[in-house]
């Protein structure tokens, strides 16, 4: 069977890389004694599948991980020897460093698309310094008014020009912060994700983020936008979790 986990990456640990996070999870799963399935061969690896990579330095309330559990002899795996999903979440949370926090755990379909294939967009909270809400609103309006936004992107070692306008699904000024303003952006991920820093570079004039936090990942289910796993309440971005 397969487990899907939603977790946050906040505070100091946001400076770890995607690979670091994978290693942290491998150790946490062993500490929590979860019966993870391993690949065959000389160098067996746990069967884990991470969703879209998060850039080093970004925070997130919506990271995902799918875990293949071992089949027990005689059929379906017993789910974590009688413990509840909440217990499981707590056990994993204890095994993880401060800032990588388990938000939800649930069994998921064996089949189905991988997370990377299924997710169509992400919502980002982007904090910009030294910009007030009025200036920000003007910039946002200018960007949204454009029919085309052509940027240079590197693809397979070559520079290509691409229109990213259609990947900006939504862009709003969320609120004023102590040092500037917070934008909320819904950016497409298919066939290739538009990154928040690419969006900011395409603004006029270009902006630089003080901090970036992924709030949601979205997939489509019968034309409705749903999250791979929902949580009751997503706390404010850039929460006080910063250890």
């Amino acid at each position, binding site marked *: 069977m397969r487990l899907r986990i939603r977790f946050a990456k906040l505070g100091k640990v946001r400076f770890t890389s995607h690979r670091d996070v994978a290693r*942290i999870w491998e150790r946490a799963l062993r500490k929590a004694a979860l019966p993870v399935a391993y690949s065959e061969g*000389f160098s067996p690896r746990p069967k884990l599948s991470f969703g879209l990579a998060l850039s080093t330095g970004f925070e997130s309330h919506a990271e995902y991980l799918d875990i293949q559990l071992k089949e027990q002899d005689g059929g379906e795996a017993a789910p974590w020897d009688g*413990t509840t999903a909440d217990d499981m979440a707590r056990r994993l949370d204890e095994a993880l460093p401060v800032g990588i926090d388990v938000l939800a755990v649930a069994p998921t379909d064996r089949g189905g698309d991988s997370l990377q294939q299924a997710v169509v967009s992400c919502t980002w909270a982007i904090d910009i310094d030294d910009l007030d809400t009025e200036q920000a609103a003007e910039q946002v309006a200018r960007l949204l008014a454009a029919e085309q936004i052509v940027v240079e992107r590197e693809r397979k070692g070559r520079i290509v020009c691409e229109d990213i306008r259609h990947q900006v699904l939504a862009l709003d000024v969320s609120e004023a912060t102590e040092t500037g303003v917070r934008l909320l952006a819904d950016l497409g991920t298919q066939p290739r994700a538009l990154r928040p820093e690419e969006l900011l570079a395409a603004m006029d004039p270009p902006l630089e983020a003080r901090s970036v936090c992924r709030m949601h990942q979205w997939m489509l289910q019968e034309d409705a936008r749903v999250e791979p796993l929902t949580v009751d309440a997503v706390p404010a971005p850039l929460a006080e979790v910063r250890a």
Partner: protein
Amino acid sequence: MSSLWPELERVLGEVQKPARYIGCEDGMIVPTHRPDKAAWLLIYPDTYEVGLPNQGLQILYEIINERPDAVAERAYAPWTDMADVLRSNGLPLFSLDSHRPASDFDILAFNLSSELVYTNLLECLDLAGVPLHADERTSDDALVIIGGHCAYNPEPLADFVDAAVLGDGEEVVSEITEVVRDWKASGRGSRHEVLRELSRLDGVYVPSMYDAEYDGDTLVAVTPRMDGVPAVVEKRTIADLADWPYPKNQLVPLTEVVHDRLNVEVFRGCTRGCRFCQAGMITRPVRERPAEQVRTMVADGLRRTGYDEVALTSLSTADFSGIEEVVAAAVSDDACGQVSVSLPSLRVDAFTVGIAAEIQRARRTGLTFAPEAGTWRMRQVINKLINEEDLYGAVESAFSQGWRRVKLYFLTGLPTETDEDTLAILELARRCIEVGRKYHSSPTVTVSLGGFVPKPFTPFQWFGQNTEVELRRKIGLLRNEIRNGGRTYKGVKLKWHDARASVVEGLFSRGDRRLGPVIEDVWRNGGVFQEWSEHFDIALWEDAMVRQGLSLDSYVYRHRTEHEVLPWDHLSAGLHRDFLWQDWRDALDELGLEDCRWIPCYDCGACTGYGIEHVVASATPPAGGSQGTGQGTDHRNGADTAVPVTLTARPRVTVGTGS
């Protein structure tokens, strides 16, 4: 002072690998600082990836933090991009545990394991805002202390350090803590007084309390400048490793580091008596950890950390009396799942089919053996008494258990080495390939060649190091032989250590106080991270030597004479000078010396001088190989004879049995 994190957080996006600077490891301690506590900043002057796994630093970190009157945090040398960012933002060196500035600490304690990091020590002091020179510091400045193997000849660093600690740190850190705590409580009076107090502690050497006298270019004596300062500083040795089950909570980093695994020290010290090996000489006697304690530390450590690999560390792990039980217990502990055991320092005369089978269970990592020299004659000179059959037996064990690649470590530039000795390295490698062909179609043997650097407190401390030109010639000899050998050496790969780096290591290994300005000159000209090939620059060192009017010939390439005063003669690792001299003469006579762990004492001084003894669980040598005697072997018939480790079934991974 409060945390620098808000400032650091804003600049970490500008540097490579920012996870180097965040701390947050499992096992990290965030201590509460108070004016009545002595505050240590333990610094490893290399990158985080290299420094984090250091066990010595982690042991002291825990011991200090267990004291009610002390705190310890950690720092590592910021990479060059981070050092630039710190300077341009006016930020100092900081601790990783609570991101405090270095100026919040009373003691900056450096762990030195290589001469090439000496300029990084200066870089860290500069970033910490501490005056470089010990004699420019005031009562407000931190005390700068060094430890680790390089501290056995601290003379080249005498200008920069306040104290050097010789030997095991477990006990002496507490004694230093008490002195510094009291100094702090009394309002941090005279710096001279606190240094005076430190110099009264066994194992603590305060260079400023000693004068070095020269006659022309020749060092005549290093003597105390005042009464009450010991004429000879003796090293510290803990009697029983069982009393020190540290680290109890090994740090588990969030980002990749070298040796990223659980490490459990199974014994300290080694009496195999390899004459080139400083570690073996200065860490005597052998002190084994009880097998039961090792088992507990392995099992608890694996459960706590989530690691799937454990290394049993020592200078020669196959010599551990309990090796069989300990390895078997580690791989058969159900709760820990698929665990691989690595034995980083293996003598070929004790590596058998059984060990090979056992350690490759979960994941097959690299396998390295260290024959050190190509001929039996040469190995008698260096007292590495393993014969060729031992090597082929070990290699056969590896190839037969599925390894296709084996690495062999050799030294070149050894005393009395001839070209015949050097070339014999390739003959050994070629015959190892032959063994491998029995099992695989294209086995490879990587020959890794290091240039020999004579070290203090070894029988070879009198030997003039081979010149850079000579080392390069010897490396070239092997390269040519391979190039001209056609198919003869198919499968043999050659790697070598930069001969220029060996020169710098040799310079400081046996250097004296006159080299201080050379280190400072190189650092001022940007020479940091010299242990990294992309930053190493021999020209910086050669130019600095010229500017100081000093010669490499005299420091590096010259043979020392029997009665010559050596820069570390006022320090002691317990070894009698006449024992070392006799061993040097025996080396030149090609006489081997057996391991004293299992036979009567040679009175080298390491035990008798300090009233301590070997702590060895077994009165007989472990089975397998010729065991350092060079005698015939009987272990090549397979797993049924002389296999220190029995094969056990792969443990099943079960659900929810954790603790």
